[in-house]
């Protein structure tokens, strides 16, 4: 599946869809219609630039809301000429979206229908309304099949295909599991917190994933903080590994390493990292280790 799916095809489609409203701009009947068409084209073209095959940048809600607003505005200004854009609502509710946004889309669809309906004789308006309701229901039924995938999967998917980088939400569970396992097997495992600059995050994340062993998982806690669970035979080996790791990791501001046996809670360790001096130093638990 992964190899069969091509992001470039979606990008091409977005660009094609952006080209059409752009071509319509010269034929626009008034300034506002032209503006709206241009905005629609811009939205599609920018989306084509932003689309990528990873969870690195989840789409922002205002950005997702724009197509709905644009469609309502287009229907508002040009319902007389292009009433058939009304059916576009059925496609919009099909997209994966939170429940409140689907409700908003249905509301906007109803309003646009009312706006278009004033041009039609009563029986046609009624028929159009009923058909639109059916189509919206069909679209929502299709979107509904994706909802479970979205709600629960978000906390457990890796952030990029093929990378051992998980969302911060799964760290708490893995931490408890690894702590129990370390105690049972008598090995030394530790939590490594790494703070970097926002713009270096993905590069450092990739380095971290490359340098850790395959059974050691990495996590993205927020836009600047990464975590890794390191597994070693004993504390001495852990210290030497940490030293080589830190030497090779570029662009790191703060580092904190805590053996899993003495971690209190993730939030506490996180706060301790915040309060740590801004020098690039490795701190083991409460006692500062040698600077690297």
């Amino acid at each position: 599946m992964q190899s069969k799916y091509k992001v470039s095809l979606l990008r091409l489609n977005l660009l094609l869809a952006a080209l059409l409203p752009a071509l319509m701009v010269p034929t626009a009947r008034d300034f506002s219609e032209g503006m709206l068409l241009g905005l629609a084209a811009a939205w599609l073209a920018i989306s084509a630039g932003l689309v990528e095959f990873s969870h690195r940048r989840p789409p922002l809600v205002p950005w997702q809301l724009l197509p709905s607003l644009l469609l309502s505005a287009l229907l508002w200004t040009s319902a007389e000429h292009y009433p058939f854009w009304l059916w576009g609502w059925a496609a919009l509710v099909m997209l994966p979206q939170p429940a409140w946004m689907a409700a908003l889309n249905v509301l906007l669809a109803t309003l646009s229908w009312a706006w278009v309906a004033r041009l039609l004789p009563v029986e046609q308006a009624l028929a159009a309304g009923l058909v639109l309701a059916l189509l919206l229901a069909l679209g929502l039924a299709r979107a509904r099949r994706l909802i479970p995938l979205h709600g629960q999967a978000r906390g457990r998917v890796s952030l990029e295909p093929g990378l051992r980088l998980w969302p911060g939400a799964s760290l708490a569970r893995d931490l408890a599991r690894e702590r129990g396992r370390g105690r049972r097997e008598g090995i030394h495992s530790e939590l490594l917190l790494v703070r970097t600059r926002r713009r270096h995050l993905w590069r450092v994340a990739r380095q971290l994933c490359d340098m850790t062993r395959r059974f050691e998982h990495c996590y993205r806690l927020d836009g600047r903080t990464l975590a890794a669970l390191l597994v070693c035979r004993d504390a001495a080996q852990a210290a030497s590994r940490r030293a080589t790791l830190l030497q090779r990791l570029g662009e790191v501001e703060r580092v904190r390493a805590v053996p899993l046996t003495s971690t209190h809670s993730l939030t506490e360790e996180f706060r301790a990292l915040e309060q740590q001096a801004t020098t690039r130093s490795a701190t083991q638990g409460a006692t500062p280790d040698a600077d690297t």
Partner: protein
Amino acid sequence: MPIPDTPRLLAGLYALGAVLLLGQALWHYLVGDYTQILLPALLAPLLLTAALMRLGQQETARLSAYLVLICGYLIVATTLPGEGHLALLWLGLPAVLTFLLLPLGPATLLNLTLAPIWLLLADGGLSLPLSLAYLTLVFAAGLAPWGIRHQRALLMATDPRDEECTALRSAPLLERLESEVERAGLLDQRLAVVVMHLPQLEVADEQFGAPARLALLDAFCRTVAEYSRDHDLLGRIGGADFWLVLPDTTESGALLVRQRIEEAAAGAMLNDTGGLEVRGATCAHSPGQTIMALKHRLDATTRHLADG
């Protein structure tokens, strides 16, 4: 958890469409427009048939979508040429309906082929702005299924869990197995794998449908979770074949786990199949054995179990 298909919901919607067509026929009758009664009156039973077909097997269910499409196309095709400007409203309906009912590929093909026909049928459809506006709608509406496909492919590539149960998918399972072998090698530990096969799964699916299959899988995964440790890895390597990776475990330990799971599963109470039959075998990883050799042994054991 799994995505329940929604045949009942869709069948209900198709039936509502049939009611709508009957209403249209009735309206034509009331206003004395007798020539127009025939088409909706004929298509309404067709839509009802589609609703019933939707509830049937997968093949007939797919056909039902085409039946609904034909109904929609015919109705719109007869409405479009009339009444000048107002009829334009119906122009976009067939394209969007196609995207709603069919998978992306056939829907795009059908829409592109039929676009000139719809434009010809529509009054003044050949004017440039109108055709552009129509194509905009078709391409923009086509982006919705593309978005869905994108999300789905991304989840397939990044979600380690199987779609139908809490076990891992096969690719992440193999990755984790390799990493656990590496870990065992580094820490001088043992590693064992329990191979399990669920012979009832296929039968349950054929006889009782998807809900029975999902219930069976769910019961199995819960049983395994109950009798294994937190860090043991259960993965679905094939349709009814599962591997349970047990780090730091000897062969006899794995045997014990296997027996416990088989016993507990047999005592499970499921609506359709009663107890849950689990066929199991164990494979221990001996130190120094390569991952390829281990995989070969596991594959052979899996095949052996599946063949009975």
